[in-house]
């Protein structure tokens, strides 16, 4: 299963959902496929899931989707007990697990290439709807359920190691511009002021 194919399936379903993304090739690929203003691709490992929890808690009427990687989630496993206890129903987490730390010069195995089963870790933390998918049909089935049901879901997607994102041009939009686009979109769709202060 290829991460890009998974994203291509997900993108047409994006309407008013909020999408949090971490770092790595998935940020480049998702940003390339989706220019939706509800995207917040924060370019840091280990924080997308936490931010998604915060957003989902305060906007319970909005579906929040978190795109994580195995490396990013392993860096922030402390989120899982918190998430299991909070049981945030409008949050769907997809972990694209290629079992490797993959940079432009490295390809080193992550713990999930060994004995670590992230879905099992999530279940042990109280996230009941945690599962692993290994082929595109299973992914499509779980993704459709996750998008359409108001239940906390955690889908570990076992994907191939790919380098296709290296061929995609990087965005010129910097992080502050990206953040403002997201916040202005939320202000418009939620009908409330988010950034305070007099001009």
């Amino acid at each position, binding site marked *: 299963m290829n991460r890009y194919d998974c994203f291509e399936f997900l993108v047409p379903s994006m309407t008013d959902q909020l999408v*949090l993304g971490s770092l790595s090739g998935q940020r480049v690929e998702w940003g390339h496929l989706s220019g939706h203003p509800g995207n*917040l691709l924060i370019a*840091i490992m280990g924080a997308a899931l*936490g931010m998604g929890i915060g957003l*989902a808690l305060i906007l319970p009427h909005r579906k929040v989707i978190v795109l994580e990687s195995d490396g990013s989630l392993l860096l922030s496993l*402390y989120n899982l007990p*918190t998430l299991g206890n909070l049981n945030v129903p409008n949050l769907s987490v997809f972990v694209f697990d290629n079992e490797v730390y993959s940079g432009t010069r490295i390809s080193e195995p992550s713990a999930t290439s060994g004995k670590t089963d992230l879905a099992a870790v999530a279940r042990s933390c109280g996230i009941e709807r945690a599962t692993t998918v290994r082929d595109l049909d299973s992914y499509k089935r779980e993704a459709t359920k996750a998008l359409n049901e108001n239940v906390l879901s955690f889908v570990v997607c076992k994907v191939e190691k790919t380098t296709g994102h290296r061929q995609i041009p990087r965005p010129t939009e910097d*992080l502050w511009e990206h953040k403002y686009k997201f916040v202005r979109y*939320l202000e418009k769709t939620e009908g409330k002021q988010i950034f*305070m202060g007099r001009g």
Partner: protein
Amino acid sequence: MEAQLAKRIVGGLKDAGISFVSYLPETRLSEIVPVLREDPSFMIVPVANEAEAVSISAGASLGGRPAAVYMEGSGVYVGSFNLLCLGRRLGVPMLLIVAHYGSVLDARNSFVYAMPGIHLIPILESLDIQYVIFTNGDNLETKIKGCVKMMHAIKQPVALLFSGEFTI
């Protein structure tokens, strides 16, 4: 800390517009937790790690609820990468409510706390995070309000460091 001071801290947060607090409990300021919990205007989220608290409050902040993180001084060390990347680089306003353990006026100071206490302010300054030190209740509410105004103005974290009377 006297119960009255805890109530004043929470009242100051509320008056300043804070309505979301993620926290990892600690000893010195812990009296604020039940006060926060009893007030339905606050959403409070207990966490397992201060870096997590920073990211959860960052999400709440960008979603439209002025947010704080309550933690011990050690949490600034643990959460520093997220403070840098979410607070500074992405520019997310959030208030840090920090028990300044190991500071000179920390009533519970000892060899256990002094070293991390000494280095806390240099860490905040290296992150270019604005801070105000509180050692007693003088002008407490006014200072909290000023810090919250500042965090909105600069769209960055601002820290309240509590020592002295708050650590008794």
